[in-house]
């Protein structure tokens, strides 16, 4: 356990930079393979070959007919209902081919997300990704999902745990379910981890995402640490994850409690531009993002009753929280500017 507390930032970064430079761009039409199904080899080049072979000619010229044929085959499956969803409503095909391709321009060109330490997410089996939460609007979760799907050698699908508010809203709830998100509750999280999925959780919840701009990058309380006992029960490693850049997309300088209560929201953000500029004010600032995954904290060495031990839960929760907080500070010190 002792070595899990040490996060070798520098080594990690150097390794990641060289790897990241040569990382090929993913085709907008990734392989048809079942999401979350790892290739098993863990060899990035192998995974790339597979997706290249299935994805046809790729973005290079001359492949338009095949692209059209693929698009029509996709349209045919969609219109006749011949596709599969899992028990949580996750529609892997729709997520990979449509939902994520809407997010990719934002991910690649707008926030220019830099991913480090992605190899800390295992190639197979369950893992619990614990991340900080910020930005007034949960774009950080969506960007995290793109990062894991596109940059992980096994192309793993991230299953995010979302607040219940998400599932009461029309359209949002439908899209969230289809993108593989589910309610942040022990039952669902444990079920997903036992099935060997990568589950993403942001334990700060509304306290983190709706905190004022002055408190940026200060981690809020991590709930009751339920995520640790869930990971322990499933024996899944905890991967701490720090996201830098999301805090500044909507600098929340005020919170209108009256409006929030009227609309039934946990907070109503007031930023220098929103709601003054209307829809224009809802455009996020183009900050530069860094997503850093830390060393996984193993949870399989504990006895069966450990998940009921409150002391151990608090200690592990603190350890995860400290790791994320330190990484955040580390990344902030090295960051050149908010926007570059």
């Amino acid at each position, binding site marked *: 356990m002792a070595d899990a507390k040490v996060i070798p930032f520098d080594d990690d970064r150097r390794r990641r930079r060289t790897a990241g430079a040569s990382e090929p761009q993913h085709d907008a039409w990734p392989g048809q393979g079942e999401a979350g199904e790892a290739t098993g080899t863990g060899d990035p080049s192998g995974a790339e070959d597979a997706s290249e072979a299935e994805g046809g000619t790729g973005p290079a010229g001359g492949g*338009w007919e095949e692209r059209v044929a693929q698009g029509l085959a996709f*349209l045919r499956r969609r*219109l006749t209902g011949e596709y599969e*969803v899992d*028990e949580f409503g996750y529609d892997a095909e729709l997520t990979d081919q449509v939902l994520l391709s809407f997010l990719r321009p934002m991910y690649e060109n707008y926030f220019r997300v830099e991913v480090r330490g992605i190899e800390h997410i295992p190639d197979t089996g369950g893992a619990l990704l614990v991340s900080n939460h910020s930005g007034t609007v949960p774009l950080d979760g969506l960007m995290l999902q793109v990062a894991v799907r596109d940059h992980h050698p096994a192309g793993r699908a991230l299953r995010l745990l979302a607040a219940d508010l998400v599932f009461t809203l*029309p359209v949002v709830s439908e899209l969230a*379910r289809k993108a593989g998100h589910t309610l942040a509750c022990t039952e669902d999280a444990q*079920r997903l981890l036992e099935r060997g999925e990568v589950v993403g959780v942001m334990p700060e919840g509304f306290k983190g995402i709706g905190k004022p701009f002055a408190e940026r990058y200060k981690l809020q309380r991590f709930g009751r640490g339920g995520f640790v006992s869930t990971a322990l029960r499933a024996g899944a490693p905890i991967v701490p994850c720090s996201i830098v850049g999301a805090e500044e997309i909507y600098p929340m300088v005020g919170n209108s409690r009256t409006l929030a209560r009227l609309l039934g929201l946990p907070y109503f953000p007031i930023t220098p531009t929103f709601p003054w500029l209307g829809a224009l004010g809802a455009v996020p600032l183009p900050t530069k993002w860094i997503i850093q995954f830390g060393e996984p904290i193993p949870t399989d060495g504990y006895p069966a009753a450990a998940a009921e031990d409150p002391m151990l839960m608090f200690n592990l929760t603190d350890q995860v929280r400290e790791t994320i907080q330190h990484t955040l500070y580390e990344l902030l010190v090295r960051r050149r500017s908010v926007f570059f």
Partner: protein
Amino acid sequence: MGRVVLVTGVARQLGGLLVGRIQREPDVDRVIGVDVRTPVHQLGDAQFVRADIRQPAIAGVLAEHRVDTVVHMDIHGTPLTPRGSRASVKETNVIGTMQLLGACQKAPEIRRLVVKSSTSVYGSAPRDPAVFDEGIEPKAPASGGFAKDVVEVEGYVRGFSRRRPDVAVTVLRFAHVLGPTVDSPMGDYFTLPVLPTVLGHDPRLQFVHEDDAVEVLRMVSGEPARGRFHAGTFNIAGAGVLLLSQCARRLGRPTLPLLSPAIRWAGSAMRTAGLTDFSPEQIGMLTHGRVVRTARMREVLGFEPRHSTAETLEDFARGYGCGLLPPEAVGRTVDRVAAGLAGLSGERHEEKEPGSHG
């Protein structure tokens, strides 16, 4: 001497099917069907007793025939006759169950009680886990309607099993039963020419095929196989999950997304017209959906449905025919477009965009 099985609610198709199936069991001597109305379908050699389970007379029926197994199927969300009222349905569900359980308690020969319950007991709420285990208590208790009936019925059944520990009590919580012959609220809904849906929601649904429903009821009404237990509460659903949009496309029926207040009005209008029942809990179902875990059914009960959720829907579609937009025709149209495009050597790549709304 063989078993004597009493089945309530035999005037409905599922009850009738079960009576027919149980008669063929080698160890069953007699099957007694009970309902308030004479069934229109044949019950074979089974004896039909016209009795109202809401009346104490049901105790006499149990004693007279020395019944040892009771299969209580008379728990429904919709009235037996189209003109029946919701109040009478509730009375049959709740008072009927109370009377029947009271009669069972007084009958010393009873060894086995099977109750056909519903996954409605979990309700449909956004704050509940996505997948329900038998042990999960819903966060929002049922406020009324069929869901509340089922919660109350299961409460009485639990009370009964405490008072009569010698009786093996099985509660089967069925997902929507669909099939070519049985009618159910979900089946009625799927036969509408245009399916009204709740705008911005795509619920997850699970179905049980009528044959599987009859089979599991037959199985638990008999002696358990070695190493299996029938007593307890079990979710019964076919494997896999379908979204409502998927069901509509596979059935070839167009959908009409409505805002939730509008669907309530449409629902009451349709109820008045006698088309289908659009109860508040069904609207909740169409908004948030419901999925249950069936691990206990497989592992403890040892029952594996022969039809998955998708196969059940397919069989249902075969029975009722396709809607206005048969999937084959849609598929052919897309194929024709593909062929046309191939002729044009693929200059119009924007064709793939309409599919983006899933």
